[in-house]
């Protein structure tokens, strides 16, 4: 539920918000635990590729929790999802560029 529906603030909404608040607390605890895990992993003697993979995996889980619950993306309107899908496509292309460049991509020759 978002504040777009705030005009209908009734007792039902108050109950909904109470549920939301419980979720926020749970997400907060999860984020704290994942932060500790992130730091703890850095003390393990992992190889660089494995360390990068694990660190980014944990960061992605944390980021998803923030986006889904704090930013309410878990129940958002279609147009927002469409905007974010387009953004994600451009974002991936942006990150892929240096990777392709480094691997001496097909259009870049020495």
């Amino acid at each position: 539920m978002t504040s777009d529906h705030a005009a209908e603030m009734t007792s039902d909404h108050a109950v909904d918000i109470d549920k939301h608040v419980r979720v926020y607390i749970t997400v907060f605890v999860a984020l704290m635990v994942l932060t500790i895990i992130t730091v703890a992993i850095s003390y393990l003697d992992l190889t660089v590729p494995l360390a990068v993979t694990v660190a980014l995996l944990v960061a992605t889980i944390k980021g998803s929790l923030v986006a889904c619950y704090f930013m309410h993306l878990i129940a958002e309107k279609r147009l927002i999802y469409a905007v974010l899908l387009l953004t994600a496509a451009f974002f991936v292309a942006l990150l892929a560029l240096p990777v392709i460049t480094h691997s001496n991509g097909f259009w870049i020759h020495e």
Partner: protein
Amino acid sequence: MDIPYTVEVRRDTGLTNGKIGIWLFLASEVMLFGALFASYILIRVGAPSWPRGDTILDVPLATFNTIVLIGSSVTMVMAWASLMRRRFGTFRLYMGSTILLGLVFLVVKYFEYSHHLELGEYPRTNNFLAVYYTLTGLHMLHVFGGMVVNAYFWGPGAKLWKTNPVWFTQRVEHSGLFWHFVDLVWIFLFPTLYLL
């Protein structure tokens, strides 16, 4: 004539202007930070050697800042939830806490920067520090910007609550979306700069 769809939602999209506006802005922010992350990857992968972040940067201090920023995201969302429950006093408390936690983040960053500068570690010193100062500096600007907007809603902007509580609640929600985005960026900055 009033601008339409500031409070009421458009039937076709189910969204207000403010909601779609903040998400489009956040999309542009994703591309801004994405470009910097891509540059970081390019510089790091292309370098003959690259230092681990924890050999140069203060991990306990950054871990503390991570906890502070995540905590501020919780207080931000609780500020919005307080308005949805029509508890203005509680909103002020949570919003005030969010602003204070943002300030704590910036103060810690100030000490971190001061320490590096005292050691003669400038952005020009090496590529690692150039990337570090650029990414964390831009992020700090976002934290500051978010604090200014939040302070406005805590103070003078809160007058809107008396005349149009629904609009005010929506504005706080949109400000919260930006604040959570800033938290989200830090969640990725922390391991990539400090721990790897």
